[in-house]
């Protein structure tokens, strides 16, 4: 069991293997995300029952919540990839970490925009300096810092290692930032879905879960596509890439 896991890890470290296996996974992931997202979003935005107090404006959660969740897990993914970069010097982890940053930042941005669109009818303002909003904004800043550092260093490998250090430092700080901001000011409602119980109607819940799963698949698709580009770019001198693009 452990041996085969180790072998799989080493296989994934090879850009060629990663390229091949993700090429075979991509159609399935695309299909899965379409199957989950299209019905989930259509039902959520069009047919799910309106909320008791907020009416129809609550429907933005079908985009807002998945985006928030992905923005946070994206940063964690980047930090884990950073650990792999620093400890095992794995080339694939460098490329994955680099690809995740702009995509995660986009989801953080989507989360902020949809949140403020929802905030206007519900809270009466586009923006409040509330803990959750502020910590999502700071998460976006952290992403931007990582991206700026990555862009500033020319050598791809040292850029990856420097950003790895930064994303690990950021990941250590993220809970501290989150709790200190929460302590500072809170207006946002607490999380409605927990592992054991949920405060929302099952009809809405399943729609939401479908959207979350669908957006995660979409995130995976985007990361894989971007990583594959990065592989081709970095391995352009290797024979298999030359053969693939027919040079």
């Amino acid at each position: 069991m452990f041996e085969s896991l180790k072998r799989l890890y080493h296989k994934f470290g090879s850009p060629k293997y990663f390229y091949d296996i993700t090429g075979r996974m991509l159609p399935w992931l695309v299909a899965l995300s379409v199957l989950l997202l299209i019905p989930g979003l259509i039902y959520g935005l069009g047919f799910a029952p309106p909320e008791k107090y907020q009416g129809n404006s609550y429907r933005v959660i079908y985009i807002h919540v998945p985006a928030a969740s992905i923005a946070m897990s994206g940063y964690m993914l980047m930090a884990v990839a950073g650990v792999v970069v620093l400890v095992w010097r794995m080339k694939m982890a460098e490329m994955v970490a680099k690809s995740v940053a702009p995509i995660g930042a986009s989801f953080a941005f989507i989360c902020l925009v949809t949140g403020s669109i929802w905030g206007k009818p519900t809270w009466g303002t586009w923006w409040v300096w509330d803990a959750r909003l502020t910590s999502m904004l700071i998460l976006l800043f952290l992403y931007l810092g990582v991206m700026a550092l990555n862009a500033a260093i020319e050598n791809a490998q040292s850029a990856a290692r420097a950003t790895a250090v930064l994303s690990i430092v950021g990941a250590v700080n993220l809970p501290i930032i989150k709790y200190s901001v929460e302590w500072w000011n809170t207006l946002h409602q607490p999380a409605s879905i927990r592992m054991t119980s949920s405060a929302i109607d099952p009809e809405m819940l399943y729609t939401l879960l479908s959207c979350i799963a669908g957006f995660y698949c979409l995130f995976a698709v985007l990361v894989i596509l971007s990583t594959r580009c990065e592989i081709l770019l970095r391995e352009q001198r290797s024979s298999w890439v030359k053969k693939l693009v027919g040079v």
Partner: protein
Amino acid sequence: MADPLVSQPVQAEEVPSMWSGMLAVMKRDLLIAFRQRSDMVNPLFFFIMVIALFPLGIGPEPSTLQKIGPGVIWIAALLSTLLSVDSLFRQDFDDGSLELALLSPQPLFVLAFGKVIAHWLVTAIPLILVAPILSIMLFMDGDTVKVTLYSLLLGTPVLSMISAIGAALTVGLRKGGVLVAVIALPLYIPVLIFGTSAVEAASMTLPYAGQLAYLAAFLIMALTFAPFAIGAALRISVTSQ
């Protein structure tokens, strides 16, 4: 006489301990700072000037200034740390001392830690000493002034450690200045929150020990973990040029 072709056992030389290595780096940096005093004085002037700009920009009403005072002092401290930190590793990187530090028998993070402490002593201590005067100029009173002093004393080392990580990551780049700000500012936020709220609590005669305890906790955490991050970052910057 010993045969020159046969390698002789090397006399085990006394390797200076980690502690003495750190002290030596600290002593050297302090000496350099005292020889070029402008590096020491400029962040202080910057701090004072930024604070002096706020009444000019916002208006001289004591009630307003009293209200924004803690935030103004903290943000000025944060910016002046950020400005001064760019020079922390730059000279050593340019003249090759950092490479020597990398090759020395003492671990890099210990030497880097010594440099950060020296930097904090040189740039932050004057700032902390002036802060009470400035806080009186912003119409803060008695207890508030004292708490400003405490919170800066606990908070500025954390700021120095965090910005040293940024400086270490960008030392090999020609245009590091703005990048350090983009990297380090989001990480300052917890310190800013607890620093200002300690002072605010004191100004409303509320208990402020909790906020100071949080700052102390951040300080301990930064002292424990940040040197490793600084060391790793320096190693990447030096080896990848």
